[in-house]
């Protein structure tokens, strides 16, 4: 079933399956072909509650996944829902990750929640014949998502945790640097906490390796109208020109890694 959208309104789909990734993460599976690309997101509507952005964490011929971390009111409500209940799906939106035509070796870095969108990217890279080096990082073992799934794929993996409870002790940046010394990497992709993204972007830029980074900002419309997600000083819309940007574009931003705005437009330190 091809999911068709003519207007910016949610399409109602029943939850087909719920995977409990760990105590804070659940993956919600829906039926249908969304036609999304890795890095894109949907707006998810819990009727009469709220609507929030979530990345596509996987997509097959007839299914798509989102992987959600419970952090507040909306995600808590979402975690109460059962298989069969209806959710509104709007999208996909945003600029996806894109592979350079030439370049066999790609490094994909996911930190914490950021593993969700890059999970989809890994599948896509494999299907395009890329050699994938995946680096996954989390605070500790319990927070990891998709680790076993990714390990089972034809991918070189390295995992790091802040406390060493899973993989090596350390940060994704350390792992990336080690990788870049060992292998000729043609392109880097990253998603995760913004401070990590700044560091990864710098590593890539210093070495002249093309790098695409997915970032998050508070989103309302999701399709480029309200202006809530615009970043300083370019005014680019994260929902529309992003969420995936070239690392250079982001590092040039005044606010990247420094501050963001909440739903009222008030600035908050990162």
């Amino acid at each position, binding site marked *: 079933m091809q999911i068709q959208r003519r207007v910016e*309104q*949610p399409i109602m789909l029943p939850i087909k399956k719920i995977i409990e990734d760990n105590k804070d993460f659940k993956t919600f599976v829906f039926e249908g072909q969304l036609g999304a690309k890795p890095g894109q997101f949907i707006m998810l509507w819990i009727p009469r509650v709220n609507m929030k952005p979530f990345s596509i964490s996987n997509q097959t011929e007839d299914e798509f996944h989102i992987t959600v971390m419970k952090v507040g009111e909306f995600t808590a409500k979402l975690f109460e829902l059962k298989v069969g209940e209806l959710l509104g799906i709007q999208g996909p939106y945003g600029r996806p990750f894109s592979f350079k035509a030439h370049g066999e070796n790609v490094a994909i870095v996911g930190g914490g929640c950021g593993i969700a969108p890059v999970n989809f990217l890994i599948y896509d890279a494999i299907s395009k014949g890329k050699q994938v080096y995946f680096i996954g990082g989390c605070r500790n073992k319990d927070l990891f998502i998709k680790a076993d799934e990714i390990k089972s794929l034809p991918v070189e993996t390295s995992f790091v945790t802040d406390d060493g409870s899973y993989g090596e002790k350390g940060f994704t940046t350390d792992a990336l640097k080690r990788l870049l010394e060992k292998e000729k990497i043609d392109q880097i992709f990253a998603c995760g906490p913004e401070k990590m993204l700044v560091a990864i972007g710098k590593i890539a830029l210093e070495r002249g390796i093309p790098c695409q980074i997915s970032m998050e900002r508070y989103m309302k419309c999701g399709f480029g*109208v309200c202006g*809530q997600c615009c970043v300083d000083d370019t005014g*680019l819309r994260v929902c529309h020109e992003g969420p995936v940007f070239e690392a250079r574009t982001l590092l040039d931003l005044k606010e990247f890694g420094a501050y963001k705005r909440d739903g009222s*437009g008030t600035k908050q330190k990162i």
Partner: protein
Amino acid sequence: MANLSLTFLGAKIKNPIVLASGILGVTKASLANVVKNGAGAVTIKSISKDKRKGHNNPIIITFETGMMNAVGYSNPGIDAAKEEFANLNEVGAPVFASIIGTAPEDFAYMAENFLSDEYAAVEVPLSCPHTPGFGTLAGQGTPEAIFNITKAIKEKTDLPIIIKLSPNSQNLGEVAKAAESAGASAINMGNTHGPGMVINLETRKPILDFKVGGVSGPAIRPITVRCIYDVYKAVKIPIIGTGGVNTGRDAIEMMMAGASMVGVGTAVYYRGISVFKQICDEMKEWMEGAGVKSVEEIIGAAHE
């Protein structure tokens, strides 16, 4: 060469297309980006004294022929907004402030404490159809309320005042005259229409979290044109025509009905952020074909 520049409220403006309030107007950087994409002037998102969260999401949906929104005036409040909208010369074109409040005193307070002469003018929407306490839901659209609020602002600022009206006003002429006689320098005609409602069939529920929302985009253009036509007949002050403009043709139609400038918001959705430049190019093309040298020639032409 067709000339799109004009003088509006004493300011020289490079073209008559102005970004409407509430679209891409949350940050100064976004306004500058809109100017880079061709707008002659820009309007900030409406600001209230206190920080407002606005309505829950969805706040904007589209339907087959237009858009509906119930943003609910989310904004960071006066202090954060003053910081956000400082050094407005960096925007690259005239910036119109937009202030809201629930009583005349609020507007006076905003005029006194928020405005600065960095703005080219202050716009005052008394016409939002979907935010309790504000606009038509609070009776701000009557001739009396408009008169009182305009007066209260006038006492606190020397900036030209633009009163933004609702297309629902039963007697638009009277309403526009109330603004003019209280000292407004221009009318923005107008705000969103309706409100409307779209129901999701599966859940049997309205989609917008506020249930209803103001209608904008192509659906509302002919009614906006008629409203401009009516206001032009009633007052001498200039008009910003806003509502449903998507193309250069539409902008010229608004000007023939009586608009001096043309507000553009929802078209960003339909044609991308470069819509401002696209509209200007289309206007120039039409003017050249029709032998119109200056865009000022066609203002109100449909009344002759």
